[in-house]
Protein backbone atom coordinates (compact mmCIF):
# COMPACT_ATOMS: atom_id res chain seq x y z
CA UNK A 1 0.00 0.00 0.00
CA UNK A 2 1.35 3.40 -1.02
CA UNK A 3 0.30 6.26 1.24
CA UNK A 4 2.14 9.46 0.29
CA UNK A 5 3.53 11.75 2.96
CA UNK A 6 1.22 14.63 3.79
CA UNK A 7 2.47 17.88 2.19
CA UNK A 8 4.25 20.34 4.44
CA UNK A 9 1.99 22.75 6.29
CA UNK A 10 4.67 25.05 7.72
CA UNK A 11 5.49 27.01 4.58
CA UNK A 12 5.93 30.75 5.12
CA UNK A 13 4.04 31.60 1.91
CA UNK A 14 2.30 28.70 0.24
CA UNK A 15 -0.64 26.55 1.29
CA UNK A 16 -0.07 23.12 -0.17
CA UNK A 17 -3.34 21.63 -1.43
CA UNK A 18 -4.12 17.98 -0.69
CA UNK A 19 -5.50 16.00 -3.62
CA UNK A 20 -7.34 12.84 -2.65
CA UNK A 21 -6.89 9.39 -4.12
CA UNK A 22 -9.72 8.42 -6.44
CA UNK A 23 -10.30 4.74 -7.15
CA UNK A 24 -9.50 4.12 -10.83
CA UNK A 25 -11.69 1.94 -13.07
CA UNK A 26 -8.91 -0.64 -13.23
CA UNK A 27 -9.47 -1.44 -9.54
CA UNK A 28 -13.09 -2.31 -10.29
CA UNK A 29 -12.54 -4.89 -12.98
CA UNK A 30 -12.21 -2.74 -16.09
CA UNK A 31 -9.09 -2.72 -18.23
CA UNK A 32 -9.33 -0.01 -20.91
CA UNK A 33 -6.40 0.60 -23.26
CA UNK A 34 -5.53 4.24 -22.63
CA UNK A 35 -4.18 6.25 -25.55
CA UNK A 36 -1.47 7.90 -23.50
CA UNK A 37 -0.47 7.76 -19.86
CA UNK A 38 1.84 10.38 -18.40
CA UNK A 39 3.93 9.25 -15.45
CA UNK A 40 4.68 12.24 -13.22
CA UNK A 41 2.35 15.08 -12.27
CA UNK A 42 5.09 17.68 -12.00
CA UNK A 43 5.21 20.69 -14.32
CA UNK A 44 6.45 18.77 -17.38
CA UNK A 45 3.77 16.07 -17.01
CA UNK A 46 1.02 18.63 -16.44
CA UNK A 47 2.12 20.84 -19.35
CA UNK A 48 2.20 17.76 -21.58
CA UNK A 49 -1.32 16.80 -20.47
CA UNK A 50 -2.71 20.24 -21.36
CA UNK A 51 -0.80 20.35 -24.65
CA UNK A 52 -2.27 16.94 -25.52
CA UNK A 53 -5.76 18.22 -24.64
CA UNK A 54 -5.24 21.16 -27.02
CA UNK A 55 -4.65 18.59 -29.73
CA UNK A 56 -7.70 16.55 -28.75
CA UNK A 57 -6.12 13.81 -26.63
CA UNK A 58 -7.20 13.11 -23.07
CA UNK A 59 -4.32 11.73 -21.04
CA UNK A 60 -4.16 9.91 -17.72
CA UNK A 61 -1.57 11.45 -15.37
CA UNK A 62 -0.10 9.32 -12.59
CA UNK A 63 1.47 11.10 -9.61
CA UNK A 64 2.80 9.44 -6.48
CA UNK A 65 2.36 12.49 -4.23
CA UNK A 66 -0.92 13.99 -3.02
CA UNK A 67 0.09 17.59 -3.65
CA UNK A 68 2.27 19.83 -5.77
CA UNK A 69 6.07 19.80 -5.36
CA UNK A 70 7.73 21.51 -2.44
CA UNK A 71 11.33 22.56 -2.09
CA UNK A 72 13.53 25.03 -3.94
CA UNK A 73 12.80 24.07 -7.50
CA UNK A 74 12.35 25.85 -10.81
CA UNK A 75 12.04 29.58 -10.52
CA UNK A 76 12.68 31.51 -13.75
CA UNK A 77 10.71 31.15 -16.97
CA UNK A 78 11.88 32.37 -20.34
CA UNK A 79 9.80 34.27 -22.88
CA UNK A 80 9.45 31.09 -24.91
CA UNK A 81 8.06 29.25 -21.87
CA UNK A 82 5.64 32.11 -21.24
CA UNK A 83 4.45 31.87 -24.85
CA UNK A 84 3.90 28.14 -24.44
CA UNK A 85 2.06 28.73 -21.14
CA UNK A 86 -0.12 31.28 -22.95
CA UNK A 87 -1.26 28.52 -25.28
CA UNK A 88 -2.11 26.41 -22.22
CA UNK A 89 -4.56 29.03 -20.97
CA UNK A 90 -2.80 29.88 -17.70
CA UNK A 91 -1.38 33.30 -18.58
CA UNK A 92 -3.79 35.29 -16.41
CA UNK A 93 -2.97 33.21 -13.35
CA UNK A 94 0.77 33.13 -14.04
CA UNK A 95 1.28 36.80 -14.87
CA UNK A 96 -0.83 37.95 -11.90
CA UNK A 97 1.57 36.17 -9.55
CA UNK A 98 4.94 36.21 -11.31
CA UNK A 99 7.65 38.88 -11.15
CA UNK A 100 8.98 40.07 -14.48
CA UNK A 101 12.64 41.03 -14.82
CA UNK A 102 15.03 42.25 -17.50
CA UNK A 103 18.22 43.16 -15.64
CA UNK A 104 21.00 41.46 -13.79
CA UNK A 105 24.21 42.49 -12.08
CA UNK A 106 27.38 40.57 -11.34
CA UNK A 107 29.89 41.64 -8.71
CA UNK A 108 33.50 40.74 -8.06
CA UNK A 109 34.15 41.12 -4.34
CA UNK A 110 31.89 44.17 -3.79
CA UNK A 111 32.29 45.94 -7.14
CA UNK A 112 30.06 45.61 -10.18
CA UNK A 113 31.68 43.97 -13.20
CA UNK A 114 28.80 43.03 -15.48
CA UNK A 115 25.28 44.23 -16.22
CA UNK A 116 22.89 41.80 -17.84
CA UNK A 117 20.21 43.53 -19.85
CA UNK A 118 17.49 41.71 -21.73
CA UNK A 119 15.43 44.42 -23.39
CA UNK A 120 11.70 43.97 -23.60
CA UNK A 121 10.41 44.40 -27.13
CA UNK A 122 7.05 45.97 -27.96
CA UNK A 123 6.61 43.23 -30.58
CA UNK A 124 6.34 40.57 -27.91
CA UNK A 125 3.54 39.98 -25.46
CA UNK A 126 5.89 38.73 -22.78
CA UNK A 127 9.04 40.01 -21.15
CA UNK A 128 12.28 38.05 -21.42
CA UNK A 129 12.03 36.42 -18.01
CA UNK A 130 9.65 35.95 -15.07
CA UNK A 131 10.21 34.45 -11.65
CA UNK A 132 7.55 32.18 -10.19
CA UNK A 133 7.89 29.39 -7.67
CA UNK A 134 7.32 25.97 -9.20
CA UNK A 135 4.60 25.15 -6.64
CA UNK A 136 2.52 28.03 -8.02
CA UNK A 137 3.02 26.90 -11.61
CA UNK A 138 1.96 23.37 -10.72
CA UNK A 139 -1.07 24.68 -8.82
CA UNK A 140 -2.16 26.78 -11.82
CA UNK A 141 -1.70 23.84 -14.19
CA UNK A 142 -3.75 21.53 -11.93
CA UNK A 143 -6.48 24.20 -11.68
CA UNK A 144 -6.52 24.60 -15.46
CA UNK A 145 -6.85 20.85 -15.97
CA UNK A 146 -9.62 20.60 -13.36
CA UNK A 147 -11.56 23.65 -14.62
CA UNK A 148 -11.86 22.32 -18.15
CA UNK A 149 -11.58 18.60 -17.33
CA UNK A 150 -8.64 18.28 -19.72
CA UNK A 151 -7.07 15.11 -18.32
CA UNK A 152 -7.56 12.43 -15.66
CA UNK A 153 -5.24 13.18 -12.75
CA UNK A 154 -4.56 10.19 -10.52
CA UNK A 155 -2.92 11.29 -7.27
CA UNK A 156 -1.27 8.92 -4.78
CA UNK A 157 -0.42 6.47 -7.61
CA UNK A 158 3.12 5.20 -7.33
CA UNK A 159 4.73 3.32 -10.22
CA UNK A 160 6.24 0.01 -9.08
CA UNK A 161 7.05 -1.48 -12.47
CA UNK A 162 6.43 -1.39 -16.20
CA UNK A 163 6.73 -3.69 -19.21
CA UNK A 164 6.10 -3.15 -22.89
CA UNK A 165 5.20 -5.21 -25.94
CA UNK A 166 4.93 -4.18 -29.59
CA UNK A 167 1.39 -2.85 -28.97
CA UNK A 168 1.23 -1.46 -25.47
CA UNK A 169 2.86 -0.57 -22.19
CA UNK A 170 1.64 -2.07 -18.91
CA UNK A 171 2.34 -0.12 -15.73
CA UNK A 172 2.08 -1.54 -12.22
CA UNK A 173 0.97 0.84 -9.51
CA UNK A 174 0.58 0.98 -5.79
CA UNK A 175 -2.09 3.17 -4.17
CA UNK A 176 -3.66 3.81 -0.74
CA UNK A 177 -6.19 1.07 -1.63
CA UNK A 178 -3.69 -1.41 -2.99
CA UNK A 179 -2.06 -2.35 -6.27
CA UNK A 180 -3.35 -2.39 -9.84
CA UNK A 181 -2.13 -2.40 -13.44
CA UNK A 182 -3.06 -0.26 -16.39
CA UNK A 183 -2.39 -0.41 -20.13
CA UNK A 184 -1.52 2.38 -22.52
CA UNK A 185 -0.64 2.66 -26.19
CA UNK A 186 2.08 5.16 -25.28
CA UNK A 187 3.64 6.36 -22.05
CA UNK A 188 5.30 9.71 -21.42
CA UNK A 189 7.83 9.47 -18.62
CA UNK A 190 7.90 12.86 -16.92
CA UNK A 191 8.79 11.43 -13.54
CA UNK A 192 11.76 13.61 -12.79
CA UNK A 193 15.44 13.30 -11.97
CA UNK A 194 14.95 9.99 -10.16
CA UNK A 195 12.63 8.60 -12.85
CA UNK A 196 11.17 5.24 -11.79
CA UNK A 197 10.48 4.37 -15.43
CA UNK A 198 14.08 5.06 -16.44
CA UNK A 199 15.14 2.73 -13.64
CA UNK A 200 12.56 0.08 -14.54
CA UNK A 201 13.72 -0.08 -18.15
CA UNK A 202 17.37 -0.10 -17.10
CA UNK A 203 18.21 3.09 -18.97
CA UNK A 204 21.23 5.15 -17.99
CA UNK A 205 21.96 8.82 -18.43
CA UNK A 206 25.49 9.70 -19.45
CA UNK A 207 27.56 12.84 -19.57
CA UNK A 208 29.54 14.88 -17.07
CA UNK A 209 28.97 15.95 -13.50
CA UNK A 210 30.57 19.16 -12.38
CA UNK A 211 32.67 19.80 -9.31
CA UNK A 212 31.29 22.10 -6.69
CA UNK A 213 28.41 21.80 -4.29
CA UNK A 214 25.89 24.60 -3.92
CA UNK A 215 23.61 25.30 -1.03
CA UNK A 216 20.22 26.59 -2.12
CA UNK A 217 18.06 28.43 0.38
CA UNK A 218 14.73 30.22 0.06
CA UNK A 219 14.27 33.01 2.57
CA UNK A 220 11.35 35.31 3.33
CA UNK A 221 12.41 38.91 3.69
CA UNK A 222 10.70 42.23 3.13
CA UNK A 223 13.41 43.68 0.89
CA UNK A 224 13.23 46.74 -1.34
CA UNK A 225 15.81 45.33 -3.75
CA UNK A 226 14.60 45.20 -7.36
CA UNK A 227 13.76 41.97 -9.19
CA UNK A 228 17.10 41.34 -10.84
CA UNK A 229 19.54 38.50 -11.05
CA UNK A 230 22.43 39.25 -8.74
CA UNK A 231 25.66 37.26 -8.69
CA UNK A 232 28.71 37.77 -6.49
CA UNK A 233 32.11 36.24 -7.07
CA UNK A 234 34.29 36.04 -3.99
CA UNK A 235 32.17 38.45 -1.91
CA UNK A 236 33.71 39.70 1.37
CA UNK A 237 30.73 38.06 3.15
CA UNK A 238 31.66 34.59 1.86
CA UNK A 239 35.25 34.70 0.60
CA UNK A 240 36.11 32.26 -2.16
CA UNK A 241 32.48 31.40 -2.90
CA UNK A 242 30.04 32.38 -5.63
CA UNK A 243 26.60 33.63 -4.55
CA UNK A 244 23.36 34.21 -6.44
CA UNK A 245 20.18 35.99 -5.40
CA UNK A 246 16.83 35.95 -7.18
CA UNK A 247 13.60 37.58 -6.04
CA UNK A 248 10.45 35.47 -6.02
CA UNK A 249 6.78 36.34 -5.44
CA UNK A 250 5.44 36.65 -1.86
CA UNK A 251 8.62 38.27 -0.51
CA UNK A 252 10.73 35.16 -1.04
CA UNK A 253 14.35 35.25 -2.18
CA UNK A 254 16.36 32.41 -3.61
CA UNK A 255 19.92 32.45 -2.30
CA UNK A 256 22.43 30.04 -3.85
CA UNK A 257 25.99 29.83 -2.64
CA UNK A 258 28.86 27.60 -3.45
CA UNK A 259 30.48 25.53 -0.73
CA UNK A 260 34.24 25.50 -0.75
CA UNK A 261 36.05 22.19 -0.89
CA UNK A 262 37.07 22.56 2.75
CA UNK A 263 33.47 22.99 3.90
CA UNK A 264 31.52 19.92 5.04
CA UNK A 265 28.08 19.94 3.35
CA UNK A 266 26.42 18.35 6.39
CA UNK A 267 27.74 21.08 8.68
CA UNK A 268 26.80 23.76 6.18
CA UNK A 269 23.20 22.48 6.04
CA UNK A 270 22.64 23.20 9.74
CA UNK A 271 20.11 26.07 10.02
CA UNK A 272 22.35 28.09 12.34
CA UNK A 273 25.23 27.88 9.87
CA UNK A 274 23.00 28.84 6.90
CA UNK A 275 21.57 31.76 8.86
CA UNK A 276 25.02 33.04 9.73
CA UNK A 277 26.28 32.89 6.15
CA UNK A 278 23.18 34.52 4.68
CA UNK A 279 23.12 37.19 7.39
CA UNK A 280 26.71 38.02 6.63
CA UNK A 281 25.77 38.51 2.99
CA UNK A 282 22.69 40.58 3.77
CA UNK A 283 24.91 42.78 5.94
CA UNK A 284 27.26 43.24 3.00
CA UNK A 285 24.50 44.45 0.68
CA UNK A 286 23.00 46.67 3.39
CA UNK A 287 19.83 44.67 3.88
CA UNK A 288 18.53 45.21 7.41
CA UNK A 289 15.03 43.68 7.36
CA UNK A 290 14.40 40.60 9.52
CA UNK A 291 14.07 37.32 7.64
CA UNK A 292 13.16 33.65 8.02
CA UNK A 293 14.40 30.49 6.34
CA UNK A 294 11.76 28.68 4.23
CA UNK A 295 13.78 25.83 2.76
CA UNK A 296 17.32 24.69 2.13
CA UNK A 297 18.95 21.92 0.14
CA UNK A 298 22.22 20.93 -1.52
CA UNK A 299 22.78 21.03 -5.25
CA UNK A 300 25.41 19.65 -7.62
CA UNK A 301 25.50 20.50 -11.33
CA UNK A 302 25.09 17.67 -13.83
CA UNK A 303 25.16 17.57 -17.63
CA UNK A 304 23.73 14.12 -18.21
CA UNK A 305 21.04 12.75 -20.52
CA UNK A 306 19.66 9.58 -22.06
CA UNK A 307 21.14 8.42 -25.38
CA UNK A 308 17.64 8.30 -26.85
CA UNK A 309 14.55 10.01 -25.40
CA UNK A 310 12.43 7.27 -26.92
CA UNK A 311 12.42 3.72 -25.59
CA UNK A 312 9.86 1.83 -27.67
CA UNK A 313 6.46 3.14 -26.59
CA UNK A 314 7.88 5.15 -23.73
CA UNK A 315 9.03 8.74 -24.31
CA UNK A 316 11.12 10.54 -21.70
CA UNK A 317 10.68 14.27 -21.05
CA UNK A 318 12.12 16.87 -18.68
CA UNK A 319 14.45 15.78 -15.88
CA UNK A 320 13.63 12.12 -16.58
CA UNK A 321 15.48 12.55 -19.90
CA UNK A 322 18.14 15.12 -19.04
CA UNK A 323 19.66 16.88 -16.06
CA UNK A 324 21.18 20.29 -16.76
CA UNK A 325 22.88 22.81 -14.45
CA UNK A 326 20.64 25.47 -12.91
CA UNK A 327 22.83 28.39 -13.99
CA UNK A 328 21.07 30.07 -16.89
CA UNK A 329 17.57 28.81 -16.04
CA UNK A 330 17.54 25.93 -18.48
CA UNK A 331 16.08 23.05 -16.48
CA UNK A 332 12.31 23.40 -16.52
CA UNK A 333 12.39 25.73 -19.53
CA UNK A 334 13.81 22.86 -21.57
CA UNK A 335 11.28 20.45 -20.02
CA UNK A 336 8.45 22.75 -21.13
CA UNK A 337 9.95 22.80 -24.63
CA UNK A 338 10.01 18.97 -24.55
CA UNK A 339 6.28 18.88 -23.76
CA UNK A 340 5.56 21.42 -26.50
CA UNK A 341 7.52 19.34 -29.02
CA UNK A 342 6.14 15.94 -28.04
CA UNK A 343 2.41 16.58 -27.54
CA UNK A 344 1.36 17.42 -31.11
CA UNK A 345 3.38 14.52 -32.49
CA UNK A 346 1.80 12.11 -30.02
CA UNK A 347 -1.67 13.45 -30.85
CA UNK A 348 -1.07 13.10 -34.58
CA UNK A 349 0.18 9.53 -34.25
CA UNK A 350 -2.74 8.56 -31.97
CA UNK A 351 -5.25 10.04 -34.43
CA UNK A 352 -3.78 7.92 -37.21
CA UNK A 353 -2.69 10.98 -39.15
CA UNK A 354 0.99 10.27 -38.72
CA UNK A 355 3.17 7.19 -38.76
CA UNK A 356 4.65 6.09 -35.46
CA UNK A 357 8.10 7.20 -36.69
CA UNK A 358 7.05 10.85 -36.16
CA UNK A 359 7.79 10.14 -32.48
CA UNK A 360 11.43 9.38 -33.38
CA UNK A 361 11.76 13.03 -34.35
CA UNK A 362 11.04 14.02 -30.74
CA UNK A 363 14.38 12.62 -29.64
CA UNK A 364 16.06 13.75 -32.89
CA UNK A 365 15.05 17.34 -32.13
CA UNK A 366 15.13 17.57 -28.35
CA UNK A 367 18.36 15.70 -27.65
CA UNK A 368 20.47 18.13 -29.73
CA UNK A 369 18.70 20.90 -27.82
CA UNK A 370 19.96 19.29 -24.60
CA UNK A 371 23.49 18.99 -25.99
CA UNK A 372 23.50 22.68 -26.89
CA UNK A 373 22.37 23.44 -23.34
CA UNK A 374 25.24 21.32 -22.03
CA UNK A 375 27.69 23.37 -24.06
CA UNK A 376 26.34 26.68 -22.75
CA UNK A 377 25.85 25.42 -19.22
CA UNK A 378 29.33 23.91 -19.07
CA UNK A 379 30.80 27.33 -19.85
CA UNK A 380 28.60 29.03 -17.22
CA UNK A 381 29.32 26.37 -14.64
CA UNK A 382 33.08 26.45 -15.32
CA UNK A 383 32.93 30.18 -14.60
CA UNK A 384 30.72 29.84 -11.51
CA UNK A 385 32.63 26.83 -10.16
CA UNK A 386 36.02 26.49 -11.88
CA UNK A 387 36.76 22.76 -12.26
CA UNK A 388 40.57 22.99 -12.28
CA UNK A 389 43.51 25.22 -11.40
CA UNK A 390 43.71 26.52 -14.96
CA UNK A 391 40.01 27.44 -15.10
CA UNK A 392 40.22 29.07 -11.68
CA UNK A 393 43.26 31.12 -12.69
CA UNK A 394 41.61 32.36 -15.89
CA UNK A 395 38.30 33.01 -14.10
CA UNK A 396 40.10 35.09 -11.49
CA UNK A 397 42.05 36.86 -14.24
CA UNK A 398 38.80 37.70 -16.04
CA UNK A 399 37.11 38.92 -12.84
CA UNK A 400 40.08 41.04 -11.89
CA UNK A 401 40.29 42.53 -15.40
CA UNK A 402 36.55 43.12 -15.48
CA UNK A 403 36.89 45.73 -12.73
CA UNK A 404 38.40 48.06 -15.34
CA UNK A 405 37.70 46.37 -18.73
CA UNK A 406 34.05 45.87 -19.73
CA UNK A 407 34.97 43.31 -22.41
CA UNK A 408 36.27 40.98 -19.70
CA UNK A 409 32.97 41.34 -17.80
CA UNK A 410 31.24 39.64 -20.74
CA UNK A 411 32.93 36.43 -19.63
CA UNK A 412 30.73 36.61 -16.51
CA UNK A 413 27.56 36.69 -18.64
CA UNK A 414 25.25 33.97 -17.29
CA UNK A 415 24.12 33.07 -20.86
CA UNK A 416 20.42 32.83 -20.08
CA UNK A 417 18.30 30.15 -21.69
CA UNK A 418 17.58 30.67 -25.40
CA UNK A 419 15.05 28.73 -27.44
CA UNK A 420 16.63 26.06 -29.61
CA UNK A 421 16.29 26.20 -33.39
CA UNK A 422 15.58 22.81 -34.96
CA UNK A 423 17.83 23.86 -37.83
CA UNK A 424 18.89 20.31 -38.69
CA UNK A 425 15.55 18.64 -38.03
CA UNK A 426 14.41 15.79 -40.27
CA UNK A 427 10.98 17.46 -40.22
CA UNK A 428 12.13 20.66 -41.92
CA UNK A 429 11.03 21.11 -45.52
CA UNK A 430 13.33 19.28 -47.90
CA UNK A 431 13.54 22.24 -50.23
CA UNK A 432 12.79 25.76 -49.17
CA UNK A 433 14.14 29.26 -49.67
CA UNK A 434 15.44 29.75 -46.12
CA UNK A 435 18.89 30.82 -47.31
CA UNK A 436 17.43 33.60 -49.47
CA UNK A 437 15.61 35.38 -46.65
CA UNK A 438 17.41 38.32 -45.05
CA UNK A 439 15.05 38.67 -42.05
CA UNK A 440 12.54 36.69 -40.03
CA UNK A 441 12.84 33.41 -38.11
CA UNK A 442 14.85 30.81 -39.99
CA UNK A 443 13.58 27.32 -40.76
CA UNK A 444 13.50 25.35 -37.50
CA UNK A 445 13.34 28.41 -35.25
CA UNK A 446 10.30 29.35 -33.18
CA UNK A 447 8.10 31.90 -34.95
CA UNK A 448 8.87 35.40 -33.70
CA UNK A 449 5.92 37.26 -32.24
CA UNK A 450 4.79 40.58 -33.70
CA UNK A 451 2.40 43.28 -32.57
CA UNK A 452 -0.53 43.69 -34.94
CA UNK A 453 -2.26 46.95 -35.87
CA UNK A 454 -5.18 46.06 -33.57
CA UNK A 455 -2.79 45.74 -30.61
CA UNK A 456 -3.05 41.95 -30.52
CA UNK A 457 -0.20 39.57 -31.21
CA UNK A 458 0.65 37.37 -34.17
CA UNK A 459 1.18 34.29 -32.01
CA UNK A 460 -2.49 34.42 -30.91
CA UNK A 461 -3.44 33.53 -34.48
CA UNK A 462 -1.10 30.54 -34.81
CA UNK A 463 -2.16 26.93 -34.18
CA UNK A 464 -3.12 24.73 -32.48
CA UNK A 465 -2.58 22.79 -35.73
CA UNK A 466 -0.19 23.70 -38.55
CA UNK A 467 -0.49 27.26 -39.83
CA UNK A 468 0.38 28.58 -43.24
CA UNK A 469 1.30 32.25 -42.98
CA UNK A 470 0.98 33.74 -46.44
CA UNK A 471 2.12 37.25 -47.30
CA UNK A 472 -0.07 39.00 -49.83
CA UNK A 473 -1.96 35.76 -50.36
CA UNK A 474 -5.30 37.31 -49.44
CA UNK A 475 -5.98 37.54 -53.15
CA UNK A 476 -7.03 33.90 -52.77
CA UNK A 477 -4.76 30.96 -53.28
CA UNK A 478 -5.90 27.44 -54.12
CA UNK A 479 -7.67 25.53 -51.40
CA UNK A 480 -5.23 23.68 -49.23
CA UNK A 481 -6.91 20.92 -47.31
CA UNK A 482 -4.97 18.08 -45.74
CA UNK A 483 -6.00 14.93 -47.60
CA UNK A 484 -5.73 11.63 -45.85
CA UNK A 485 -4.87 13.10 -42.47
CA UNK A 486 -7.38 13.40 -39.65
CA UNK A 487 -5.69 16.56 -38.50
CA UNK A 488 -8.01 19.53 -37.92
CA UNK A 489 -6.70 21.01 -41.14
CA UNK A 490 -4.16 23.59 -42.01
CA UNK A 491 -4.98 27.08 -40.86
CA UNK A 492 -4.35 29.58 -43.64
CA UNK A 493 -3.46 32.99 -42.32
CA UNK A 494 -2.92 35.70 -44.89
CA UNK A 495 -1.11 38.98 -44.25
CA UNK A 496 -2.55 41.79 -46.34
CA UNK A 497 -1.19 45.22 -47.18
CA UNK A 498 -4.80 46.38 -47.16
CA UNK A 499 -5.92 48.36 -44.12
CA UNK A 500 -9.28 46.64 -44.01
CA UNK A 501 -8.75 43.13 -45.33
CA UNK A 502 -11.11 40.18 -45.44
CA UNK A 503 -11.98 38.36 -42.19
CA UNK A 504 -9.27 36.00 -40.88
CA UNK A 505 -6.66 38.11 -42.64
CA UNK A 506 -4.06 40.19 -40.81
CA UNK A 507 -3.94 43.86 -41.79
CA UNK A 508 -0.43 45.14 -42.44
CA UNK A 509 -0.96 48.56 -44.04
CA UNK A 510 2.53 49.80 -43.08
CA UNK A 511 4.30 46.64 -44.21
CA UNK A 512 5.50 46.01 -40.66
CA UNK A 513 4.97 42.24 -40.76
CA UNK A 514 6.37 41.99 -44.29
CA UNK A 515 9.54 43.65 -43.00
CA UNK A 516 9.80 41.64 -39.80
CA UNK A 517 9.56 38.38 -41.70
CA UNK A 518 11.71 39.45 -44.65
CA UNK A 519 8.66 38.79 -46.83
CA UNK A 520 7.71 39.78 -50.33
CA UNK A 521 4.39 39.24 -52.14
CA UNK A 522 3.46 35.54 -52.39
CA UNK A 523 5.98 34.55 -49.75
CA UNK A 524 4.86 32.03 -47.13
CA UNK A 525 5.91 30.41 -43.85
CA UNK A 526 4.73 26.97 -42.75
CA UNK A 527 4.41 26.92 -38.96
CA UNK A 528 4.38 23.68 -36.99
CA UNK A 529 1.81 23.05 -34.26
CA UNK A 530 4.53 23.83 -31.69
CA UNK A 531 5.17 27.23 -33.27
CA UNK A 532 8.46 26.43 -35.01
CA UNK A 533 8.99 27.22 -38.68
CA UNK A 534 8.91 24.08 -40.85
CA UNK A 535 9.85 25.90 -44.05
CA UNK A 536 9.60 29.26 -45.79
CA UNK A 537 9.37 30.10 -49.45
CA UNK A 538 9.60 33.20 -51.64
CA UNK A 539 6.77 31.95 -53.83
CA UNK A 540 3.73 30.05 -52.68
CA UNK A 541 3.47 26.71 -54.42
CA UNK A 542 0.73 24.45 -52.97
CA UNK A 543 2.50 21.32 -54.20
CA UNK A 544 5.71 22.23 -52.41
CA UNK A 545 3.86 23.13 -49.20
CA UNK A 546 1.85 19.93 -49.42
CA UNK A 547 5.10 17.95 -49.66
CA UNK A 548 6.47 19.84 -46.64
CA UNK A 549 3.31 19.03 -44.66
CA UNK A 550 3.60 15.35 -45.51
CA UNK A 551 7.19 15.37 -44.37
CA UNK A 552 6.31 17.32 -41.21
CA UNK A 553 3.58 14.88 -40.21
CA UNK A 554 5.36 11.73 -41.39
CA UNK A 555 2.14 11.04 -43.25
Amino acid at each position, binding site marked *: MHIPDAPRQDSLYFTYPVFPFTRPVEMDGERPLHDVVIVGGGPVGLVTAIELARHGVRAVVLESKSSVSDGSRALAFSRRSQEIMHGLGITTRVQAKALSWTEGRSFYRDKIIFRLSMPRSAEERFGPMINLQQCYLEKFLVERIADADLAELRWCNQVTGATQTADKVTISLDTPEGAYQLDARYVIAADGARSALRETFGLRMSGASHEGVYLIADIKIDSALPTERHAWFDPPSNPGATMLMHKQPDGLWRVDYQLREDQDPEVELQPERIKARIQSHLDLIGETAPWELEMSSLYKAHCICLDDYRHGRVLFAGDAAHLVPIFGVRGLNSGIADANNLAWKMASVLSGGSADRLLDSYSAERRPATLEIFEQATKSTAFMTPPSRGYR*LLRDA*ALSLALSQPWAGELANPRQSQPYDYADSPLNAETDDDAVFTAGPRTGAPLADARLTDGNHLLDHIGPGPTLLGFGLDKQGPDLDWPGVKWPGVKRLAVSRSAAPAPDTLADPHGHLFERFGATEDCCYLIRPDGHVAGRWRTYDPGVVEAALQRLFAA
Partner: protein
Amino acid sequence: MNTPSSLSFEDLERVYALLAETIDGLGPEREALFLSKLTLVLAQALGDFETVTRAMDTARRDLD
Protein backbone atom coordinates in the same frame (compact mmCIF):
# COMPACT_ATOMS: atom_id res chain seq x y z
CA MET B 1 57.11 34.94 -35.39
CA ASN B 2 59.02 37.43 -37.49
CA THR B 3 56.26 39.65 -38.74
CA PRO B 4 56.43 43.24 -39.96
CA SER B 5 55.03 44.35 -36.58
CA SER B 6 57.89 42.80 -34.56
CA LEU B 7 59.32 44.96 -31.80
CA SER B 8 62.64 46.66 -32.41
CA PHE B 9 65.42 44.94 -30.50
CA GLU B 10 65.64 47.94 -28.16
CA ASP B 11 61.93 47.71 -27.33
CA LEU B 12 62.14 43.95 -26.91
CA GLU B 13 64.88 44.45 -24.35
CA ARG B 14 62.77 47.04 -22.53
CA VAL B 15 59.74 44.70 -22.39
CA TYR B 16 62.02 41.91 -21.18
CA ALA B 17 63.33 43.98 -18.29
CA LEU B 18 59.96 45.51 -17.46
CA LEU B 19 58.28 42.11 -17.25
CA ALA B 20 61.08 40.71 -15.10
CA GLU B 21 60.91 43.61 -12.69
CA THR B 22 57.09 43.55 -12.56
CA ILE B 23 57.09 39.83 -11.69
CA ASP B 24 59.73 40.44 -9.02
CA GLY B 25 57.65 43.25 -7.62
CA LEU B 26 54.45 41.17 -7.47
CA GLY B 27 55.85 38.13 -5.67
CA PRO B 28 55.23 34.47 -6.58
CA GLU B 29 51.63 34.27 -5.25
CA ARG B 30 50.38 36.91 -7.72
CA GLU B 31 52.59 36.06 -10.67
CA ALA B 32 50.30 33.49 -12.31
CA LEU B 33 47.25 35.75 -12.01
CA PHE B 34 49.18 38.68 -13.43
CA LEU B 35 50.50 36.67 -16.40
CA SER B 36 47.00 35.30 -17.12
CA LYS B 37 45.55 38.81 -17.08
CA LEU B 38 48.35 40.06 -19.26
CA THR B 39 47.73 37.28 -21.79
CA LEU B 40 44.02 38.12 -21.99
CA VAL B 41 44.75 41.82 -22.41
CA LEU B 42 47.33 41.20 -25.15
CA ALA B 43 45.01 38.75 -26.91
CA GLN B 44 42.21 41.29 -26.83
CA ALA B 45 44.56 43.98 -28.19
CA LEU B 46 45.81 41.65 -30.96
CA GLY B 47 42.27 40.84 -31.96
CA ASP B 48 43.24 37.68 -33.83
CA PHE B 49 42.57 34.18 -32.52
CA GLU B 50 45.06 32.44 -34.84
CA THR B 51 47.93 34.68 -33.83
CA VAL B 52 47.16 34.06 -30.16
CA THR B 53 47.09 30.26 -30.54
CA ARG B 54 50.31 30.34 -32.59
CA ALA B 55 51.91 32.39 -29.84
CA MET B 56 50.74 29.85 -27.25
CA ASP B 57 52.23 27.02 -29.30
CA THR B 58 55.50 28.90 -29.55
CA ALA B 59 55.58 29.56 -25.79
CA ARG B 60 54.82 25.92 -25.01
CA ARG B 61 57.86 24.66 -26.89
CA ASP B 62 60.93 23.44 -25.01
CA LEU B 63 59.53 24.04 -21.52
CA ASP B 64 61.73 21.34 -19.98
